[in-house]
């Protein structure tokens, strides 16, 4: 038995050591309990109430809030629209992010690779709200896109993409693209040059190299990137509101409304938990897929 493991085994048995462990862990986990775990439990409790609790009135329990989708069919449309936004955003991030990651990993080197990498992930650390706001400057009537169009076609009618479905998608792709580039880049930079050289020496052309080597080896990055994008996008509310205007009604904005405008907290809580269930299902499914791939290789 090595010295290290001996120390650890002894440590586990000594009561003073377990007190020390507890003392180290309590502040962090106590904080998380107060700020995250208990609030989630409280929200679960609220989702079964008939109305927001008012002091002095008895609490009435119901499961009606979870039946909202049946009672209010428009919520189906809203949910579908959110999923549509999620799919479009994730799909476009794959189409742009994967080639960009491959280019970064395979077509650049040394210092320029380092700088390009930083340039791509830098926007991702700047405030998301500020970036969405930036798009309104580009897309609005009389904005930069409109201005550029009129430089070339002075007679064209004024042109605005703001408050449209494409505007929401553009803003969200811009917000989440760096995630996809990052996860795909981590996969792509682990691919050995020798695999590609071997394929080429056996006569494989570029499309074959892509479909048979690059894509399969980038799949873990693609899947984790897609989850990192799809999950927050279906819960987004600020981007659809600012870039979509009246068109931007999503699950996110409906939930936000229940808490800030309609004050129907129980319904908002039930919708949140329905969405959380969907998120957990996605995580569970994807962790199995990723774990499965891990064992194949």
């Amino acid at each position, binding site marked *: 038995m090595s*010295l290290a493991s001996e*120390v650890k085994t002894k*440590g586990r048995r000594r009561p003073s050591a*377990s007190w*020390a*462990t507890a003392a*180290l*862990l309590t*502040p*962090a*986990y106590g*904080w*998380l309990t*107060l*700020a*995250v*775990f*208990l*609030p*989630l439990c*409280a929200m679960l409790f609220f989702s079964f109430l008939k109305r927001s609790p008012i002091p002095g009135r008895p609490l009435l329990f119901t499961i009606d809030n979870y039946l909202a989708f049946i009672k209010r069919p428009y919520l189906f449309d809203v949910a579908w629209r959110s999923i549509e936004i999620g799919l479009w955003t994730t799909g476009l991030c794959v189409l*742009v992010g994967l080639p*960009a990651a491959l*280019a970064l990993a*395979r*077509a650049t080197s040394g210092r320029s*690779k*380092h700088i390009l*990498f*930083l*340039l*791509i992930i*830098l*926007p991702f650390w*700047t*405030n998301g*709200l*500020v970036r969405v*706001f*930036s*798009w309104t*400057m*580009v897309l609005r009537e009389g904005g930069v896109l409109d201005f550029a169009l009129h430089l070339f076609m002075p007679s064209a009618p004024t042109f605005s993409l703001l408050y449209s479905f494409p505007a929401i998608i553009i803003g969200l792709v*811009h917000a989440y*693209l760096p995630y996809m*580039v990052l996860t795909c880049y981590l996969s792509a930079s682990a691919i050995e040059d020798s695999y590609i050289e071997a394929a080429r020496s056996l006569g494989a052309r*570029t499309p074959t190299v892509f479909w048979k080597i690059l894509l399969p080896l980038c799949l873990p990055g693609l899947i984790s990137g897609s989850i990192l994008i799809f999950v*927050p996008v*279906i*819960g*987004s*509310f600020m981007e659809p*509101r*600012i870039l979509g205007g009246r068109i931007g009604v999503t699950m*996110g904005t409906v939930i936000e409304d229940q808490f800030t405008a309609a004050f129907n907290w129980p319904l*908002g*809580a039930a919708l*949140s938990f329905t969405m*959380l269930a969907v*998120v957990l299902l996605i995580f569970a499914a994807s962790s199995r897929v990723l774990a499965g791939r891990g064992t194949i290789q």
Partner: protein
Amino acid sequence: MIALGRAFLAATIFFLYLPIVVMVALAFNASPLYTLPFQLTFHWFVVLANNGPLLSATYNSLLIAVATSILATAVGTLASLALNRRSFRGQSLLKVLLLPPIAIPWLITGTAMLVFFFWTGIGRGLHAMLIGHVALAIPYVVLIIGTGMQTLRADLEEAAMSMGSTPVHAFFAVTLPLLAPSIIAALLFAFAVSLDQFVVSYFLATPGVSTLPVEIYTSIRKGFTPEINAISAIFLAVSAILVLIFAQLSNLGGNRDRH
């Protein structure tokens, strides 16, 4: 293929920076209605300097970010020590419990905090935002410090202790100095998490007390002038500088070239 790849990369970077450059440029444009062509002015920065609510929101943001950075790093470092240097039952469960604050959409976490803080009388305001921000930053701190500790040799501490040093003394004399770069990285990261946080702050803000992102959101929805561009430009610059320092410290995206 290489040339095509580089062109694609350039186009991607153009897409990522186009709106940001436009937004920053318009902070220096004279027209309050964002009319082009461009006329250079610093007027909007002067207006900004006299905007009370926006300045107090900026002050609140910085205050919460500094407090979050210190609290989350202190609390998270302690937890990271236990998770990486000790073995106990339930260790893997505790590690998994770090994921919900990161993985659950902020909309859900934020509204849950609103409901719970309202119900328990904690209420809304700066203190509530601080509680929320620290909770969101703790998992990142634990992960950053944990990564730093994995590269650190545990036998250094054990050597110190076998020579008669107490665990506490070994921590301050050996572990802490070696961990300093990770701790600074964690401080910066927690600061950035708090400074950028919008969703949770939005639900916990009260009409008089808000943070910069919340104030910007309110302004965007009410109608705005290039003043908002000016404060956003400053905000972007601060975040960018923080990330560059963080990247330098943690060698983010550093030499991954193995060839």
